[in-house]
């Protein structure tokens, strides 16, 4: 693994100077548009209109296709030759498409115009379009914009851009409150709400909210916790509103969830005794659930291809709570500040890589022969055909995996490919 060097072990020594294998070359990742697939389910009165090409529409359909039988709350305004040749005014065309959409879906309260590679390259000004359409459709529909383009964002960064676009819409307040940012499954959100409320932390809000009009207020006394590791822009936008981040690892696994909750508890001045009282039972339950799965995973070597930016917290969970050995933790982008607590918990010497040169990474993976490879949908079956067990990573963003009650579910996602191989005699 030339170029990748060992991490200095222990907390405190990890910093901006941490050596990481940085690669450039062909990537095999989704673009930011893909996050629409879960965002449109999360915010129930929002609609996502991609302004892009047939490729964008095809991507969304291919990534989401099998999961959606109702009409989705997303669509694509496909740019055509006429728009490019200047025969049609792109802005007028966009207005027409939006009007047709709003007429068809009167329940829409919030419309996102989502920029794509082609709309960025032709410099279609979606900010102005959003302002114009917002005014025209006010007060029924609010129109915002962000970019999910693949020349600027990968996969989960689309959610980051979307949340960052929501921040300026949040009302101002000087009240003290806790904000949890990052889309979580409702069942996870409810569990977190129960725990945090039981700890006496509040008022408590989530971003994104389930309904667009329930957007929380924000201000200098807002503290926020990240539920997802890929939210750099959203964090900057919140900090610009005066809110302050509570540094913490991510709520994956029993340990991660405890540390995440504890960070909030400490910020609220809640003592250790009270904290144990509220969290002990659920944590014990999570650890018990993990115990059985640990038998199959302990000692197994795992290799991560870059995908969702969840790789570092996942590697921490797999190594510390399940005894797995990370061979390479690839991530599309390593946010050193937001991952500082995570990196400190990773076993010393865990090889990290950032960015991608697909062929070289495949060579490393084949040479290492990991017991489990975490990778995207394009690579999973080819690697299986080469005899490598894989876990396709997109499931990690569609499945509830955060929190105590999901810890065993998360572990099972990694154990199942191995258990399956144990069972199959064909």
């Amino acid at each position: 693994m030339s170029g990748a060097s060992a991490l200095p072990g222990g907390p405190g020594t990890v910093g901006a100077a941490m050596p990481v294998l940085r690669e450039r070359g062909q990537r095999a990742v989704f673009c930011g548009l893909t996050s629409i697939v879960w965002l449109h389910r999360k915010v129930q009165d929002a609609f996502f209109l991609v302004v892009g090409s047939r490729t964008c529409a095809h991507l969304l359909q291919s990534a989401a296709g099998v999961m959606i039988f109702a009409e989705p709350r997303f669509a694509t305004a496909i740019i055509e030759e006429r728009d490019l040749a200047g025969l049609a005014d792109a802005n007028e065309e966009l207005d027409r498409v939006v009007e047709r959409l709003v007429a068809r879906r009167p329940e829409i309260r919030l419309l996102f115009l989502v920029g794509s590679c082609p709309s960025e390259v032709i410099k279609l000004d979606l900010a102005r379009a959003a302002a114009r359409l917002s005014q025209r459709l006010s007060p029924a529909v609010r129109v915002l914009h962000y970019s999910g383009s693949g020349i600027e964002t990968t996969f989960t960064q689309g959610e980051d851009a979307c949340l960052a676009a929501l921040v300026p819409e949040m009302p101002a307040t000087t009240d003290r409150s806790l904000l949890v940012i990052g889309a979580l499954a409702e069942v996870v959100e409810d569990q977190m709400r129960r725990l945090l409320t039981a700890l006496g932390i509040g008022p408590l809000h989530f971003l994104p909210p389930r309904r667009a009009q329930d957007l929380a207020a924000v201000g200098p006394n807002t503290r926020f916790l990240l539920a997802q590791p890929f939210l750099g822009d959203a964090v900057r936008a919140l900090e610009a509103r005066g809110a302050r981040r509570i540094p913490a690892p991510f709520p994956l696994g029993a340990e991660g969830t405890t540390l995440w909750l504890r960070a909030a508890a400490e910020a609220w001045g809640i003592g250790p005794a009270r904290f144990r009282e509220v969290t002990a039972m659920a944590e014990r339950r999570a650890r018990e659930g993990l115990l059985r799965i640990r038998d199959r995973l302990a000692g197994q070597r795992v290799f991560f291809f870059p995908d969702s930016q969840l790789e570092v917290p996942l590697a921490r969970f797999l190594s510390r709570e399940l005894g797995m050995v990370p061979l390479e933790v690839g991530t599309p982008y390593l946010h050193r500040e937001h991952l500082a607590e995570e990196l400190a918990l990773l076993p010393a010497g865990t090889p990290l890589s950032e960015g991608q040169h697909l062929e070289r990474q495949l060579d490393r993976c084949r040479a290492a022969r990991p017991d489990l490879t975490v990778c995207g949908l394009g690579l999973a079956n080819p690697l299986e055909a080469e005899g490598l067990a894989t876990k396709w990573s997109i499931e990690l963003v569609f499945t509830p995996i955060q929190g105590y009650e999901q810890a065993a579910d998360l572990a099972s996602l990694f154990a199942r490919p191995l258990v399956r191989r144990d069972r199959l005699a064909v």
Partner: protein
Amino acid sequence: MRLAVWTYEGPPHIGAMRVATAMQGVHYVLHAPQGDTYADLLFTMIERRGERPPVTYTTFEARDLGGDTAALLRAALHEACERHQPQVLLVGASCTAELIQDDPGGLARRMGLPVPVIPLELPAYQRRENWGAAETFYQLVRACAGPPGPRPPRPAGAPPRCNLLGPTALGFRHRDDLLEVRALLAGLGIAVNVVAPLGATPADLARLPEADFNVVLYPEVAEPAARWLERSFGQPALRVVPIGVGATQDFLAEAARLAGLPPPAPAAAASRLPWYSRSVDSTYLTGKRVFLFGDATHAIAAARVATEELGFEVVGLGSYSREFAREVRAAAAQYGVEPLVTDDYLEVEARIAELQPELILGTQMERHIAKRLGIPCTVISAPVHVQDFPARHSPQMGHEGANVLFDSWVHPLMMGLEEHLLAMFREDTEFNDAAPPSHLGHAAAAPPPPDLAAWGAEAERELQKVPFFVRGKARRNTERFARERGIVTITVETLYDAKAHFAR
């Protein structure tokens, strides 16, 4: 600009990928941003291919745009040649790269690469997937088949030969159709010279002119190449697509004619469809109102089968294949219906809602519509879904294909009939919603054990958040867990304790 909820076809470079992936020894360098790499999953997940498609993406980013995206392209071209050692290199751009005008094809040609380069110009803002596949296949055939001229004479004593043109990767039942068509031709004593693009190498394409005629199996992909071969080598094309009993007979007759063989005797009982259709229990199929939509080839072929071989009434016929609009209109006129040539899913939905057919024969997109409107539906055409690559042999073409059509079109109607009967006898004491399935006997109807714990309101609400398809299991497991521990009221904690207990 067009509003698209779903699309029937991908962009044209997806068509090029279908051709490249189908062939051996071909590599495709695609100038494209990173997001376009999603296309790999179509092949590895939907078609379950065990290899990555032979595509190198340049995956340029915003920061490259100010600098030198062409340098990136050159590096990708060198690397692709070195690593994959292709016999032919396809070079092109996806929608975004088309806008930055790096001219990938021209650039690759000027680089003096150690392998023949075929530049692909696939206008992403005008054309779509099937056009892209057809254009790519045509360019490959032109480049590999050698200069136009007279066909080489057939060796003495050799059987007549034909090429099978059109099957690609990610094709709707192409794999299975091919076996059927090979069997049909073998029955006539006609040899298959080359199948392309599926499984062919560039060297195989060079042998195309040796055949006596070309079979255009999938006109959406093969028509331009077949026309060029006809012009260049005087190879006639067989354009009957053998979907259905009648069309299969026509195909055999036409193949024999082109091969210079005597007309084949109609094969009795080659397919079960005719008898199944005549057997009395099919009487209820008479006049069923059917709506057809798909690529032009499958939709038009299905219309003939529906009317002549199943006794349905065609109430609507349409296609997203704009390149074959003329053929679709002609067929629609024949059945006395208004043709629908569109790739606007919303328009198709509106037409179906208006016509209220009893059966939809369409694509995966129409399945969404059918589900919403409660109409039985069978898929007869791409766009494909993982279900369209069944493990079993399931062709659309030839004798076995006709059997498959009968089964797959009639089954959803039978399911509809069963549902109707269920509704009719809803009040029957033994046969109602609440009664357990009769095959489970009376045990299943036993009352719950008396010591069953009661669900607290909050726990019940939490249970509702469990996805519906595992909710029953979660409920049973929790109740068992509670019973074993003598818990009287199930709380949220009990629910999660049970979940942890049963986790594995």
